[in-house]
């Protein structure tokens, strides 16, 4: 391409260069630069300013030269920031960039600015002067304020959501263990992650008849508000049905039907246990949930009940009532899969480790056993819980007379 074909010819460029050279003499470049300049002594005393500075601030040279320190023109909060942050950085690094501050103008108004500050040194390295360039940041600052406000709102709503989750979660867990003569009850719960989301695990204890107690523990699929409404339905259905249904299996059958009616796309697993203290008889029903583990006084372990189908999926679920005779010293542990599926390097916590903890804690109270299981699973997973963990421990005291 020859010069003659280019949109701007070489001759035109040369002319423009000469014109720029003539217009932009050094003094004019300084005085009317598109930023304000200040030259100051090391302590900030203003020695020289450009015309842009005077135009922006409304000060005259008499107002500021040798009379004011630059930092004294800042609002108080920014002055503290200048003394505690900018000045040290300046002495240590020689320059500070993009510091936001508000300048107090001659009429008392404020001008949001961004500043770059450079420290000049003599040949011996001693600081000699400070040069400051100021940029009008009015619009940027209002945008940044909006961003800050938006971030604060986001943080607040995050905190509110977490509080809400914790409050909601606490309604799925009884606040206190009932005190039952001849029965020791304990439970522990640990939410997944930081607990900011409502999990699907729940448990409950309640009396279903004279000296007959119901214990439910379950895990609704999913998390958050969608899981929470299902958990609420399951808990209330269990409570309502336990009073009138003929057996634990039929209580879980009613839960299945309620879920199919209201939330056909959701499912859950649950255990329902009925403890008849007078007859020392336990009836276990499982809707697709891990069977409870029992440790007998002589140290033997067994699983109680028969596996059944997950609730809310099949057209005709199968849930069995399995009777178990209780003996003094029996410890029965119900747990959710957050415990047994706690992971370390692809290795799972599993029921064997759970049994080891139950073995080790055989002299502790039911609550201590429940806490020990959750802590062990949590430690196993490196202190982090990927899923909620719920544990219920039921123990018949060794000296129980059995009524």
């Amino acid at each position, binding site marked *: 391409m020859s010069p003659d074909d280019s949109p701007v010819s070489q001759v035109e460029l040369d002319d423009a260069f000469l014109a720029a050279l003539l217009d932009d003499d050094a003094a004019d470049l300084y005085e009317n630069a598109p930023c304000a300049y200040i030259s100051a002594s090391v302590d*900030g005393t203003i020695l020289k300013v450009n015309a842009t500075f005077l135009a922006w601030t409304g000060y005259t040279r008499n107002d500021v030269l040798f009379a004011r320190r630059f*930092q004294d023109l800042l609002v108080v*909060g920014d002055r*503290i*920031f200048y*003394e*505690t942050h900018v000045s040290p950085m300046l002495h*240590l690094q020689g320059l500070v960039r993009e510091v936001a501050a508000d300048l107090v103008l001659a009429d008392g108004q404020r001008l949001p600015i961004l500043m770059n500050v450079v420290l000049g040194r003599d040949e011996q390295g001693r600081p000699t002067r400070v040069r400051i360039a100021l940029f009008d940041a009015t619009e940027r600052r209002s945008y*940044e304020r909006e961003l800050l406000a938006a971030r604060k709102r986001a943080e607040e709503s995050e905190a509110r959501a977490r509080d809400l989750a914790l409050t909601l979660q606490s309604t799925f867990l009884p606040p206190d263990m009932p005190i039952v003569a001849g029965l020791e009850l304990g439970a522990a719960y640990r939410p997944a992650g930081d607990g900011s989301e409502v999990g699907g695990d729940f448990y409950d204890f309640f009396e279903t008849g004279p000296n007959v107690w119901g214990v439910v523990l379950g895990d609704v699929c999913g998390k958050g508000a969608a899981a929470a409404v299902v958990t609420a339905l399951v808990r209330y259905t269990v409570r309502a049905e336990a009073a009138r249904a003929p057996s634990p299996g039929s209580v879980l059958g009613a839960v299945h039907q309620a879920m199919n009616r209201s939330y056909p796309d959701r499912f859950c697993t649950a255990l329902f246990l009925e403890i008849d203290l007078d007859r020392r008889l336990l009836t276990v029903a499982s809707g697709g949930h891990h069977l409870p583990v029992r440790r007998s006084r002589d140290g033997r372990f067994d699983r109680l009940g028969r596996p059944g189908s997950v609730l809310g999926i099949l057209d005709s679920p199968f849930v069995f009532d399995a009777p178990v005779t209780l003996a003094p010293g029996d410890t029965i542990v119900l747990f959710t899969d957050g415990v047994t599926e706690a992971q370390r390097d692809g290795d799972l916590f599993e029921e064997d480790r759970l049994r080891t903890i139950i073995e080790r804690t055989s002299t502790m109270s039911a609550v201590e056993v429940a806490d020990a299981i959750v802590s062990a699973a949590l430690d196993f997973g490196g202190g982090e819980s990927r899923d909620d963990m719920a544990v219920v421990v039921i123990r018949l005291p060794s000296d129980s007379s059995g009524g």
Partner: protein
Amino acid sequence: MFVHGFGCDQHMWRFVAPAFADRYRIVLLDLVGAGGSDLTAYDPDRYAQLEGYATDVIEVMEALDLDDVVIVGHSVSAMIGVLAALGAPDRVSALALVAPSPRYIDDGEYIGGFSEADILGLLDSLDSNYLGWSQAMAPVIVGNDDRPELGAELTASFCRTDPEIQKRFARATFLSDHRRLLPEISVPTLILQCVDDPIAPTQVGEYVHAQIAGSRLVRLRATGHCPNLSAPTETAAAIAAFVDDLRP
């Protein structure tokens, strides 16, 4: 033992501390939340008051099993030094307070220099200036460097830390009131007062001097709040004259 103030980290002492290295054991530290400290060690409750920082200073003296310690505290760490001296009287033998203030907010006849609204303004200023801060820019540990100026690559990390920690430290600093502790100080105490210090004005230095019996007030020619950086030679000489006097 040199303890830095609000704003930066132990680099504040890089032009002063070396002047003592030939005849004293020098201990420098970054307060939790500043410089190369472990940010995960920051506990909002522990550090809501200056006592938390003073406990750390005492724990450092215990860990190093130091006694006969001169604490040189700048700015807010002058009061952290006062708290540490009262908390560990068997270890601290003298205090050098650089630009101290026991209370920043005016209170009746006492002039601290600030109002509560000013301190809220500082919190705004911290907000505006930490917009660009992110965890990725968390401070790196800076090695000793002979150059008078730190490299530009440190610009992002130096004097910067988690904005929430800075704001909490600002509150713990500027809303504190330790005036009642000053008369309890019985160790030899030096007060260094700068000219035109907007953070710790002259009348505050005089107040501290009047409240600590037997204290020595030295008026530096240095201006501003950071004589350890702006006038390190004068600052080191004033501290040296004081500590060398303590020797038998």
